[in-house]
């Protein structure tokens, strides 16, 4: 069961070869068996899952179902789920139960999907290795010594270990694509505004975007179809017509113009990773794509720009965690200031505090123009680079990460080297473009991802290219031996 694609599961459910309750039980058992090694779930919602599965079966019986009715999934613990704890990987929200569900959680529920649980993540989505979670590190199913990537590390881990068929994630600077790459998955960060942010706990509002971590492009397309769409509760949500993201999957990619940014294949890229990517690009060429070198001249500024804008927004977004109305409050506060200081001091982890401080500094009177404003100007230049590139090519291909998964502890003492693991993914968020990472091979038995960047709203095209690639390769069907 766990080797099947969503389409196969869907067909089995609709033909009544298996019930949703059986399928759900099957995955709950796998979670029970394997998650202790992975630590990928913060909360497993067995009871809710079985009751949702029962309703799904009822719907299937009545013929009142959608393509994904009865299919289990896992949600990143950043999406609020009514009546079920939502922690965002933080001690601050260890006791937080939202009275509402995120729009995408509701949409999945309306589609008849079954929530298995909430996945572990870097605290408030700040991290690239899942080492900042209050709930402990998540292991990479391909190598338990290796990080799964972050911040959607739990979601990546559960899908790679096949203890959930598919999972949601969020991506602020690479938090879907980077763990997808490190865990051998297909991960999609949609165009900013395509997926509602309502009920998704904010890290950096102008960059955050919900998306999918899946085993292949087709699965990704199916779940994206459920998640995407305008939401009146999110003012930055885009009014785009509903789309069937599977419609173009089988299109030929003959004549597809792929741009290879020279800035992305130079210094800093692990030569072994580069070799894997060359081979994957060759496959695409054999399928009819035409590659050309392009330049994105301001890309070297994306990491510094990101580390101004994201912390600035985060410093403000995280002000609401003050111990007054919900979340962690310190014991015996002496006065208001003491309550603020200790609640936040004890409730937040080191990386969150670092970013809150950087952001507070960057927005301060006298520094705002030099940092925040300047960063916004450069952000515009970075967007313009992409705009020019898309006048020449249809999509851009690049590494997703500079290296395959690193080991636990390898970068925790050096934040800057950790930040640089997102060097190829960050610019996509700054420009608001869609980006996809797909498994392209292995280096020392650890997966490597190829990133495809498209123009606004070209998700269906990116999924088409990935799907075509997956027709002629089998990286996406390989499974970590321990969990197969």
């Amino acid at each position, binding site marked *: 069961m766990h080797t099947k694609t969503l389409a196969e599961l869907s067909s089995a459910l609709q033909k009544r070869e298996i019930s949703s309750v059986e399928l759900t039980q099957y995955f709950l058992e796998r979670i029970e068996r394997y998650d202790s090694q992975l630590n990928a779930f913060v909360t497993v919602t067995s009871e809710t899952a079985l009751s949702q599965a029962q309703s799904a079966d009822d719907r299937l019986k009545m013929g009142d179902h959608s393509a994904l009715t009865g299919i289990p999934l896992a949600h990143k613990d950043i999406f609020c789920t009514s009546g079920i704890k939502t922690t965002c990987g933080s001690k601050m929200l260890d006791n937080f139960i939202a009275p*509402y569900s995120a729009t995408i959680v509701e949409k999945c529920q309306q589609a008849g999907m079954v929530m298995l649980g909430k996945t572990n993540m870097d605290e408030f989505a700040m991290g690239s290795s899942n080492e900042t979670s209050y709930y402990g590190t998540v292991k990479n199913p391909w190598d338990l010594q290796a990080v799964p990537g972050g911040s959607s590390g739990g979601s990546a881990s559960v899908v790679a270990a096949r203890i959930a068929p598919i999972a949601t994630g969020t991506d602020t600077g690479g938090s879907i694509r980077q763990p997808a790459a490190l865990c051998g998955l297909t991960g999609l960060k949609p165009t900013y505004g395509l997926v509602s942010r*309502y009920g998704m706990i904010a890290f950096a509002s*102008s960059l955050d975007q919900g998306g999918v971590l899946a085993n292949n492009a087709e699965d990704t397309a199916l779940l994206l179809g459920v998640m995407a769409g305008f939401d009146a509760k999110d003012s*930055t949500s885009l009014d785009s017509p509903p789309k069937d993201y599977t419609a173009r999957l089988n299109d030929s990619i003959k004549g597809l113009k792929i741009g290879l940014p020279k800035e992305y294949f130079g210094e800093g890229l692990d030569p072994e990773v580069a070799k894997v990517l060359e081979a994957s690009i060759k496959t695409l060429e054999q399928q009819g794509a035409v590659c050309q070198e392009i330049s994105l001249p301001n890309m070297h500024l994306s990491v510094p720009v990101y580390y101004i804008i994201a912390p600035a927004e985060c410093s*403000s977004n995280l002000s609401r965690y003050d111990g007054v109305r919900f979340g962690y409050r310190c014991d015996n506060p002496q006065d208001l200031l003491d309550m*603020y200081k200790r609640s936040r001091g004890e409730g937040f982890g080191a990386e969150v505090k670092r970013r809150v401080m950087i952001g507070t500094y960057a927005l301060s009177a006298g520094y705002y123009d030099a940092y925040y404003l300047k960063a916004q100007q450069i952000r515009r230049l970075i967007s313009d680079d992409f705009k020019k590139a898309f006048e020449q090519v249809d999509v851009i291909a690049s590494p997703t990460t500079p290296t395959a998964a690193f080991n636990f502890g390898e970068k925790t003492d050096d934040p800057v080297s950790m930040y640089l693991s997102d060097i190829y993914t960050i610019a996509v968020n700054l420009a608001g473009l869609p980006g996809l990472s797909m498994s392209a091979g292995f280096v020392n038995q650890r997966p490597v991802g190829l990133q495809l960047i498209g123009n606004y709203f070209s998700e269906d095209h990116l999924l088409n290219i990935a799907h075509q690639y997956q027709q002629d390769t089998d990286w996406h069907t390989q499974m970590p031996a321990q969990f197969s």
Partner: protein
Amino acid sequence: MEWETVIGLEVHAQLATKSKIFSGASTAYGAPPNTQACAVDLGLPGVLPVLNQEAVYMAAKFGLAVNAKVSPRSVFARKNYFYPDLPKGYQISQYELPIVEGGQLTIEMDEAEKTIGITRAHLEEDAGKSLHEDFQGLSGIDLNRAGTPLLEIVSEPDMRSAKEAIAYMKKLHSLVRYLEICDGNMQEGSFRCDANVSVRPKGQAEFGTRAELKNLNSFRFVERAINLEVERQIDILESGGQVSQETRLYDAEKNETRSMRAKEEANDYRYFPDPDLLPLVVEEDFLQQTQRDLPELPDEKRQRFTTQYELSTYDAGVLTANRDIADYFEEALQAADCEPKLCANWVMGNLSALLNKSNLEITQSPVSAAHLAGMLRRIADNTISGKIAKQVFEAMWEGESNADQVIEKQGLKQVTNSSKIEQMVDEVIASNPKQLADYRSGKDKLFGFFVGQVMKASKGKANPAQVNELLKKKLAEN
């Protein structure tokens, strides 16, 4: 040395929308604590603001009414600071690009009219309330008010006295109520004012150091606080000191201002554009529609009242200061079809007096405009005299609906039958021989006495003009 006062006002007008500026929760006043605060108002994780169109419409109305520019593009920013009644740790406001820029308002002072510049008006959300009583040393937080839409209206430092400041504030108060964008209720905090006050030697071009006065929630407090502050600053300067830039709180009970925080202690609000809200775009057709929706404004109405009804500037000013009063007046006048001045006198006189006494708005008046008109018609056609009308009016105030019924029931109809009046005149003259003799020997003042006696005899119902005429004739006879 002669000192000049310089005042600028920041008025917070609570917009009369049904729901909050960024959520669907109700804005109604007086609900039990925290019953009108939804997830968005509570600043729970993951929630997002969605701008209330109605608030934009109201801000645009204001902008057009003060001849300001309503910006085609304005931006919501976050003002970051920690306070327990500020749920998100930031207030959504407009900072660099407000929705309204550069307008003006004319005030009428004794000597002349004066134009006060309006620098800007911007949309923002209100905070909640901290409650310090009844919690045994702890504080309670009520977030019902959090997210209520405010229009902050910032004037130029154009006012030169507390009197001018009050005139400006009253004019603004009248305007927002005309526009129906604010209920103007100062006790409930719907219309609040902060004042920036400084003094400078008369003739000096640059401004002195200013203090910001907070918590001025009535016209009277504004006047008192400003005058106190002006005295305080002059005292400091005359004794060789320097005024420091600070925020001062007005304490109405002690009638004093005291320092809240100095400039150095001021928060660094770390403003930046709110990434959860797109820039606010106001389209041209929306503005044109809003312009068409504008009611007749106080100045125009006052002007019209002086020309159309030939009322004095003063009367027209009183009647048009409040749109409801003006509407009442016009409704009554139209129905009564009498002299406008007669109607104006009743609305500004007896009606206003009784309303004030009972603390009622004109919209709550027990005597409707139509019923007042019914009475005015009877004055105009001489059925009753002005004096008797007071009696009729009081009866209507107490619940009698119809003037004619009151007149009928109480037998108040004026006596206009001249033979009847003549009979009463004759009787009065006959029964007061001494006064008659005195009058005839030159005590003209006694004429009033005779009028009084006749009116008394008629129980006030005799037509005074006829009484006068007949008395004059009869007293002069022989």
